[in-house]
């Protein structure tokens, strides 16, 4: 109960005291903060009431019905808040010159955090498998529809997006290509290395050692090496390899993915109990049959687990690809840093984080299902 009261008080303090929006004459000058009262107007009491009711319900007990009611209330309050911020920004931007910006302030982010936590708690209380991803998907869909309908057009994040829609979409494709290319290089490399039974100690040392090398440094060294390689074998240029571009970026990403993949593969191959292996040999199964019928099915959760770690790392590392001219969402982030435009940084950062979180969630759900022995 005390936690619930403290939570409601914290939300009230954020909505009343912290800047929800920051209004600036252009995107470079520091803006003037606008707090909850000024932005939300009459919606503020409704949002606070819904949120307080949801928190109170969550505090009353572990009941399922209570959880559903709290979830609906929290969702309603969150949607109302998002909509009101959008229209509040719209009202403030009306009649302003096009360079003027209404950016989301600290209060908006803190409130988003609050509602994420509250919705997460409520979802857990309802105890319905699959509800969490469903709610997340629904919220994402709602947000996308809201953006499409123009509810947030006045926010500077949307203004930046509208100005670079094509760039963002290209960057997204490039980002996925870099991460996928890294995975595509690392997986065969790891399989080949695992086949070298006698060299596993050395492989472990090298693959582990790569992790110690900072990514920026490895990319720099790879660019230098690719440049040298191209001078020695100019024919590679015809294949589309260049010193600056996707080639060194994918090689660098792949280098870091080798440790989790190599460990996962080794763990997966060790997954069957020695007794089952003996039994399989006794039945006269060949080594290939043991691999396909015993080791790989039993080791599948470990393989998916390794793939999950590697995918999340690949999506993060692809950000640095922009440093070596490979594009990707990192380019938008670096552009934002160079221009000191926080909204541009966010425009690149939000998809990166969303992609990583989505990959993490999907693959860990798959892993859990495999562990539970249910065929996915």
């Amino acid at each position: 109960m005390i936690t619930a009261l403290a939570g409601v008080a914290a939300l009230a303090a954020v909505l009343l005291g912290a800047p929800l929006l920051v209004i600036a004459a252009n995107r470079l000058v520091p803006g003037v903060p606008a707090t909850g009262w000024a932005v939300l107007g009459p919606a503020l009491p409704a949002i606070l009431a819904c949120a307080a009711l949801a928190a109170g319900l969550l505090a009353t007990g572990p009941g399922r019905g209570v959880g559903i009611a709290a979830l609906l209330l929290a969702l309603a309050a969150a949607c109302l808040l998002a909509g009101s911020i959008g229209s509040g920004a719209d009202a403030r931007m009306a009649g302003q010159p096009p360079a003027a910006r209404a950016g989301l302030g600290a209060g908006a982010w803190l409130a988003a955090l609050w509602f994420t936590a509250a919705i997460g708690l409520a979802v857990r209380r309802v105890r319905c498998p699959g509800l969490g991803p469903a709610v997340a998907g629904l919220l994402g869909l709602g947000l996308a529809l809201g953006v499409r309908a123009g509810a947030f057009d006045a926010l500077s994040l949307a203004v930046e997006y509208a100005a670079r829609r094509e760039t963002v979409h290209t960057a997204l494709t490039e980002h996925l290509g870099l991460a996928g290319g890294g995975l595509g290089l690392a997986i065969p490399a790891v399989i080949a290395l695992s086949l070298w039974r006698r060299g596993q100690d050395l492989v472990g040392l090298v693959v582990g050692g790569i992790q110690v090398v900072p990514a920026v440094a490895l990319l720099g060294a790879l660019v230098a090496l690719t440049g040298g390689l191209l001078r020695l074998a100019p024919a590679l240029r015809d294949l589309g390899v260049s010193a600056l571009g996707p080639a060194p970026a994918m090689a660098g990403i792949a280098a870091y993915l080798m440790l989790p993949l190599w460990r996962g593969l080794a763990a997966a191959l060790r997954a069957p109990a020695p007794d089952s292996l003996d039994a399989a040999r006794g039945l006269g199964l060949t080594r290939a049959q043991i691999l396909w019928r015993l080791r790989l099915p039993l080791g599948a959760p470990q393989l998916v687990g390794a793939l999950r770690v590697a995918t999340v790392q690949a999506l993060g590392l692809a950000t640095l690809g922009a440093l070596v001219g490979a594009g990707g969402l990192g380019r938008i982030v670096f552009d934002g840093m160079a221009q000191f435009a926080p909204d541009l940084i966010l425009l690149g950062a939000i998809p990166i984080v969303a992609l990583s979180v989505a990959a993490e969630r999907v693959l860990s759900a798959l892993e859990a299902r495999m562990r539970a022995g249910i065929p996915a």
Partner: protein
Amino acid sequence: MSARSLIPVAATGLGLAALSHPAVASRIVGALGEAPRRALDVDRLLALTLQHLVLVGTGLALVAILGLGLGILATRARGAALRPAIDALAAGAQAVPPVVVVALALSVLGFGGPPTLLALVAYGVMPLLRGTAGALAAVPREAIAAAEAMGMTRRQILTRVELPLAAPEIVEGLRTALVLAVATAAVGALAGASTLGTPIVAGLQNQNTVPMLQGATATAALAFLGDAALLGLAALVGISRPRT
């Protein structure tokens, strides 16, 4: 075990450090067929290394205090409610790459060292915190019960039983945090911090391979040498590496 595994790490570090010397780096780039351009001289390289080290050292000290402190707090009876939040935060931190943390901190703190330090701490705390909390939670109940039966106070149990038993995992967490700190400090060059990442970023931008290679090898050398130093320190106080 520890002392033996330290040698290849330290040797790699020293080798990479040698590669970052202007004469060596120029020769390598020359061998790769590129017209040699001006290299960073030793003084500039040492100055950048020092700045890199100051950033990493400050960050790592903060990381150690925060990570150990919160890790201990989360495993006390009173802090048990914190565990799920810590696990969620640690999982969340995994999803945000260091570059993005630096970029987001940049918009709050401005250019230079501060955003890098913030990113370094925010990113480094998680592996140490998770390692500490996990290792303390894994201390056998019997060991604690025995210590209680011997009449030890809570503080004595923590410092004489729990922390020594958890030490190998804590050292692993610190090693991860150190490697992350060196890497994040290098990325900090993008936010205008003056570190060994600066020649890499500048070299990539104006196609100047020699300083790029020098910065890259020096940064990697720093990571390996720091790792070796931590391993050596742990071996010195008698902490063996955990069996994996």
